[in-house]
């Protein structure tokens, strides 16, 4: 059977991009009135950097959520990955490849554990990944008090700070990762199976999908993405940071970005392109507020309100579609 015949009906461009365009337009106007400039070099660069960090995590999170699962351990995986990478490199340029390999391998191992807990032991994903997160938290809290290790200077210069025009290398990497995830979801058997499992696990199983294998793969990929985010953050910060994942609220924010991007939290519907839109939306709101010098706490209030409002708009549209 050719893959093409299996293509499900795709939804049109997710509404998140309309919201993104509106946010940028309104933000640009407001910042202009305020006497600033939203689209100058430095703000664009920092916007894309923020988006890259959250983007890696959110793309991975999209995969597990599509499959009807969830990963709350990503924040700790990120922190752990920064430490593994930075400590292995220890400022040594020659150790970049083994360090990245080790960080990704550790992340993949955690993803495998998550996946096995969810599928073989049938622990609810929320509890399973929360529990694994706690395991990691204990390790991080007992082993580290502050930054540790040193990222190799080359990696800091390339992945951390190098950019092509206003676009950071890390954002290009995010685009590549998103592209691969998009391809995997829409053009490969794994992707179709994943969406089928998320849509209705029982029907998928009866249709011959090996649910467990598909979900475990999704969890491994999700953790790999979180590990990649960790490597990126290590190259931004120049060292391993044991609290960077939790302080950045990467677990909850990545889920928010996925849902804002139009993926159903219950699974079975959505995609990575929307997720990147969601990430960009969150990052743009951040950039606009930074330009306006809005109080950090007020920013958080608005963020919370926007997340709820965005999802409410989606729900409304879905309802209307169902009615017509």
């Amino acid at each position, binding site marked *: 059977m050719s893959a093409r015949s299996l293509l499900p009906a795709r939804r049109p461009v997710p509404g998140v991009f309309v919201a993104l365009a509106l946010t940028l337009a309104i933000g640009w106007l407001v910042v202009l009135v305020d006497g600033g400039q939203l689209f100058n070099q430095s703000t664009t660069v920092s916007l894309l950097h923020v988006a890259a960090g959250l983007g890696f995590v959110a793309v991975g999170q999209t995969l597990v959520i599509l499959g009807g699962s969830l990963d709350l351990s990503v924040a700790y995986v990120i922190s752990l990955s920064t430490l593994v990478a930075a400590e292995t490199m220890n400022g040594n340029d020659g150790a970049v490849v083994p360090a990245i390999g080790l960080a990704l391998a550790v992340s993949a191992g955690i993803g495998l554990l998550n996946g096995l*807990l969810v599928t073989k*032991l*049938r*622990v*609810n994903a*929320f*509890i*399973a990944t*929360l*529990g*694994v*997160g*706690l*395991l990691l*938290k*204990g*390790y991080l*809290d*007992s*082993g580290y008090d502050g930054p540790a290790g040193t990222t190799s200077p080359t990696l800091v210069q390339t992945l951390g700070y190098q950019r092509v025009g206003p676009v950071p290398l890390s954002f290009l990497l995010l685009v590549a990762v998103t592209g691969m995830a998009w391809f995997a979801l829409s053009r490969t058997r794994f992707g179709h199976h994943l969406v089928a499992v998320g849509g209705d696990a029982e029907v998928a199983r009866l249709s011959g999908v090996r649910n467990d294998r598909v979900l475990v793969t999704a969890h491994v990929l999700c953790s790999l993405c979180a590990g990649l985010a960790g490597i990126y953050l290590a190259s931004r910060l120049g060292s391993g940071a044991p609290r960077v994942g939790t302080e950045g609220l990467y677990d*909850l924010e990545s*889920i*928010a970005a996925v*849902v804002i991007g139009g993926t159903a*939290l*219950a699974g079975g519907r959505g995609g990575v392109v929307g997720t990147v839109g969601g990430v960009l939306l969150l990052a743009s709101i951040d950039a606009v507020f930074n330009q306006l010098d809005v*109080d950090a*706490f*007020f*920013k*958080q*209030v*608005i*963020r*919370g*309100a926007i*997340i*709820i409002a965005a*999802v*409410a708009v989606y*729900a*409304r549209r*879905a*309802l209307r579609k169902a009615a017509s």
Partner: protein
Amino acid sequence: MQIVQRRRLPLRLIRVRPGGVLPILTILAVLLVLVGIRQPDFLDPPSLMSFLGRSAPIILLAAGQYFVIVCGEFDLSVGSLVTAQVVVAARLIDSDPARTWPVVLLLLAFGAAVGLVNGLITTRLRVPSFITTLGMFLILVGAVYLWSDGSPKGGLSEEFRRFGRRAVEDVPLLGRVPYALLVLLAVAALAVLLTRSDFGRTLVAVGDNPRTAELSGVRVWRTRTIAFILSGLAAAVAAILLGGYSGVSFQAGAGLEFGAITAVVLGGVALGGGRGSVVGAMLGALTLELLFALMNFYGVSGALRSTVQGAIILLAVAVSATRSSAR
């Protein structure tokens, strides 16, 4: 069918029904024995009483979370709600004993209002409760920092703190009984009564199958909204006790939402709704607290504590999950 029937028989003999409180009681008993071996005086009435008093806030939160979870939703906002309540109480009371009672009433109203908003957004605007309450979490944390310019202001009156830290002295047999424990018992009794009422049954029906419930004439949205209000109220009571016990800080409620959800799941309540009891949820919270006490006695360092907690939760939930799927 025959085979299924036959295989179920031995299970029925020991009467393990999914969502029952037997598994959690077993874990609780094992932990109690372990504590008893290590630290026999922990089981003396006075220290046991003060332990129960200390555990009251998280048990209350678990009870509140139960209502939300059993009808198929989540409430991630309770931790931030507790923080917000404590900080608001300190600023409004400003160490003036005369303001204690009005502020207590205000906190309860505030908790109910947050629950109402959570419930209405979830049910009327059809936003998944995970997102609604996550948004509420961000809003409450941001708002409370914003309102107090980054550091808590004012102070709690002694009257207010009484609920969390004082006790009824000289009770025969038991020694001192903390007020917190009395509050807990009262709320627990109310919660059990509520689950036995029509509303409690409706709630479980909604969690089990909202569509069927809707078709049977249940106003699903109203039931769920009330569940969120109950969770908000429970958070308010927990905040009053917690503020009294440990004072004012921005960390007062940090992480409590996950603690409460874990406790509820440990107590045999299914995430996704429709199964489990409020007693199980509260026992789950008690077990979690006892586990922390046990780790203290065995000298597990504070940092490693979350590792042990994580391992135990995974183990307990995995065991119960494989057992219920082996039916």
